[in-house]
């Protein structure tokens, strides 16, 4: 369970998050939406322990992230706008490096498994810079699940992907076992957000403005809600 409690984040005088509260239960797939600059990535970075909140705290299974960060990082995987991969290394070298950093047991077998899941087995000895954007994003997903984290943070995983690759994203996420993980995903695509997640959350004015279950809302209703909160921002 992830408990985001009264998170405030400021950058100089600019207040991005103004006491955001959100509880994500185990097995939840929460889609976080909001306008550009609403603070989605900031919130994601705080949960990933890449950024410290100005006030408030994040609890993961009851443990304060600020107190047990080095141990809790093991349970988190992140897919970001950026691939977090070394362009000059091959997919195999990249994953081997991360496997060593996470102490992944039987790394060679695990790397083969995740590369097969994302459909890149056979290209593992090619440098990442020779990959298309879609392939790089698939490899980024493989990297994020390499250590089999129970919590997966997906920060606009469809950024830079063409329509076909974006459509494939859902299938790919199911292939890598999203149903076994607690997931927080940001996206600007309302339809995709609603189809992938079982909860949709809208971030506006630095707070959680709307939190609905998928079966409680239609795409049209979600769109209305979204524009209402975004335009009031």
């Amino acid at each position, binding site marked *: 369970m992830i408990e985001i409690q009264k998170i405030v984040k400021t950058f100089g005088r600019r207040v991005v998050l103004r006491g955001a509260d959100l509880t994500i239960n185990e097995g939840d797939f929460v889609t976080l939406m909001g306008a550009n600059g609403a603070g989605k990535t900031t919130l994601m970075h705080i949960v990933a322990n890449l950024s410290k909140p100005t006030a408030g705290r994040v609890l993961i299974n009851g443990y304060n992230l600020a107190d047990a960060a080095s141990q809790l990082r093991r349970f988190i995987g992140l897919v970001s706008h950026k691939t977090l991969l070394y362009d000059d290394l091959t997919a195999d070298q990249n994953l081997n490096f991360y496997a060593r950093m996470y102490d992944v047991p039987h790394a060679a077998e695990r790397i083969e498994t995740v590369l097969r899941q994302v459909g890149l087995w056979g290209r593992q000895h090619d440098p990442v810079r020779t990959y298309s954007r879609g392939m790089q994003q698939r490899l980024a997903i493989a990297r994020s699940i390499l250590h089999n984290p129970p919590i997966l943070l997906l920060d606009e995983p469809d950024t830079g992907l063409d329509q076909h690759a974006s459509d494939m994203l859902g299938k790919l996420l199911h292939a890598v076992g999203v149903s*076994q993980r607690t997931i927080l995903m940001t996206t600007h695509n309302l339809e995709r957000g609603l189809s992938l997640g079982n909860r949709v959350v809208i971030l506006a004015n630095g707070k959680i403005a709307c939190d609905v279950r998928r079966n409680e809302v239609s795409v049209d209703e979600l769109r209305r809600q979204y524009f209402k909160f975004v335009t009031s921002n």
Partner: protein
Amino acid sequence: MTEQVKPLSNTATAAPAAPGGLTGYFRKVLAIVRKDVAAEIRTKEMISAMLVFSLLIILIFNFAFDLRAENINTVAPGVLWVSIAFAGMLGLSRSFILELDRGVLDGLLLTPVDRSAIYFGKMIGNVLFISVVEIILLPVFVILFNQPANILPMLAGVVLLGTIGFAGVGTLFSAMAVHTRAREVMLPIMLFPVVVPVMLSAVRLTAGILDQVPFEDVRHWGVLLVAFDAIFVAASFMLFEYVVEE
């Protein structure tokens, strides 16, 4: 001390906790070094740039100064360390830029690794790359400045000590400068004033070797160099976490 976190109860089970103690720590340090070496072997960007630059500096100084037998040993130590410092600066400035591309520094910070392991991994990589350049640079220096070949082992020892101090604090400043807008300018501005004690003692020791004075006469410079190496590496080890984390 923080309490031990129990594994989460989701179906997906994260990799087991890292092997404790120094073995696990050094395995992470080694992984970072291996990753940097693998990237450098593939691109050869850093070492080739440093090597060409350092050789050019040595050549330019060699032509620029009116070198005669009586003044050569006065000028040579400074020339050697200017070329090492400038070439090293090139390497250091690239060191964390590579980590910033594609956000891989975030990728590193996401891993359950002590931040000091990242520092040591990057520092050892920097020492290695600068040392490779020095292995080629030193014989060229000996030939161009008419020095006897038998000083090479002693010279290599001093150069290694100087490089450890330079890269030790340089790795920390490289991590600081990479977040600034004018990072290529900021690194030398921050680093050179701090690294003066290392440079000064390394130049004095090098002069002692070239003049073939008894070791006792320059021993205090050696002690100073080792002491500053230790201080710089220890201080950087302690401060690195605050530099890379927001």
